[in-house]
């Protein structure tokens, strides 16, 4: 009789949090050469208070001591930082694995060779359309070409299984097979992730977020292709359709993951860059370990969560009430259903909000100023050069 062994369910253990994150996202800079319309971190301009190289290395030392297994380095565009390549090396030399997320504009053949030769290093290329028409409408002119060129260079250099990461939108859910084909062509692993109404994503959410029928389409495709495709567990709310998708199937924010931003602020997750979800700053006494282990916000998140409005729903055990950030930035209370609840409870909750209901906006906004309206439609014309840094270059002004 195994009465002294009580393994329990993983999801119950992890909702109570861990002594250290399993992995975390670290945005190295808010600077970016692009101006994607759905940018979760509202990136564009460098923050003058960015962590210095020495401060960044001190964070890596802390992550090593905590035995954080790997860090997802992003931004903005992390390769814009001159010390980026040094920080990569420093991290892998100190037993913290790295995956970095990039739009690809600095992944030259030479860089690709170097990356392919580095252990404990993974690369993730962002692509949001299987065609330039769909992709560039969201990410900007020439970005499709840039991404494919980067993948070509990585493949040529012998890098296998790097990630090609897609944010699923209304306009690209019909291209899932094509995305798989592109990833296969370059020996990359396809990653499909959920769009959240975070950062600039809040402004384009109504136009970009998948329609209910498309969520079903996506879920069916993931079930059929699941073992070949990563999702970052970002679709756990779709588990309410039936068979759970691979992954922990729970909100990891403040429990198994978090975000360190370019100025050292620690947030529960990269989709929750808002004071409400700020736990502390790595520059404070005790650094990151102290924030992770002792901050009021994270301790609160690790308390048993009630299901709120979802408690009596038969799907709650699978979907866990969905995404905290999705609720927050659409103006829903955190104990409401997910705005994209597959049973439609989110739509009901949204409809019940007052017409003038307040939708939280983050004060953290490093977007480059845009003084002309941006269209989401296709931009005809010749692609611009890949390294174009002016977000207004080639912009089509809507009439």
């Amino acid at each position, binding site marked *: 009789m195994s009465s002294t062994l009580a393994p329990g369910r993983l999801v119950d253990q992890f909702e109570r949090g861990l002594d250290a994150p399993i992995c975390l996202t670290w945005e190295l800079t808010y600077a970016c050469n692009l101006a994607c319309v759905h940018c979760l971190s509202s990136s564009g301009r460098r923050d003058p208070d960015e962590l210095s190289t020495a401060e960044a290395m001190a964070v890596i030392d802390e992550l090593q001591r905590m035995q954080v297994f790997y860090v997802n380095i992003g931004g903005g565009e992390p390769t814009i930082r001159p010390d980026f390549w040094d920080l990569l090396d420093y991290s892998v030399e100190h037993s913290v694995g790295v995956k970095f997320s990039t739009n690809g504009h600095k992944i030259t053949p030479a860089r690709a060779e170097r990356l392919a030769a580095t252990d404990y290093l993974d690369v993730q290329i962002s692509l949001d359309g299987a065609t330039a028409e769909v992709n560039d409408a969201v990410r900007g002119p020439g970005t499709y070409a840039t991404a494919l060129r980067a993948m070509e260079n990585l493949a040529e250099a012998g890098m296998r299984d790097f990630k090609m990461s897609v944010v699923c939108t209304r306009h690209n859910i019909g291209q899932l097979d094509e995305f798989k084909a592109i990833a296969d062509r370059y020996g990359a692993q396809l990653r499909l992730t959920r769009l959240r109404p975070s950062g600039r994503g809040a402004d384009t959410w109504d136009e970009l977020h998948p329609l209910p029928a498309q969520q079903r389409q996506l879920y069916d495709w993931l079930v059929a292709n699941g073992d070949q495709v990563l999702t*970052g567990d970002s679709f756990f709310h779709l588990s309410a359709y039936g068979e759970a998708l691979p992954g922990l199937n729970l909100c990891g924010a403040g429990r198994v993951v978090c975000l360190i931003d370019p100025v050292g602020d620690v947030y529960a997750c990269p989709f929750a860059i808002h004071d409400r979800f700020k736990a502390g700053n790595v520059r404070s006494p005790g650094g990151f370990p102290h924030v992770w282990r002792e901050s009021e916000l994270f301790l609160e998140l690790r308390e048993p969560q009630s299901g709120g409005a979802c408690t009596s729903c*038969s799907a709650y055990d699978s979907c866990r009430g969905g995404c905290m950030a999705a609720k927050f930035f659409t103006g829903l209370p955190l104990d409401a259903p997910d705005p994209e609840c597959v049973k439609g409870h989110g739509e009901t909750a949204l409809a019940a909000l007052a017409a003038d209901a307040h939708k939280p906006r983050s004060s953290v906004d490093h977007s480059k100023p845009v003084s002309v309206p941006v269209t989401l439609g296709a931009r005809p014309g010749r692609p611009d050069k890949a390294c174009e840094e002016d977000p207004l270059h080639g912009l089509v002004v809507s009439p």
Partner: protein
Amino acid sequence: MSEVPQVTDPQTDEAKAGDGADEDAIEELLVEEVSIDGMCGVY
């Protein structure tokens, strides 16, 4: 009336692949594997 569904932990299903159909396996499984990309909140 609220239901209390018996939902099988999905990780248990994955870890069980290849094992015999042991009815005690769910309680006794001491190791589970998850993809390093299996936690939400990492883009």
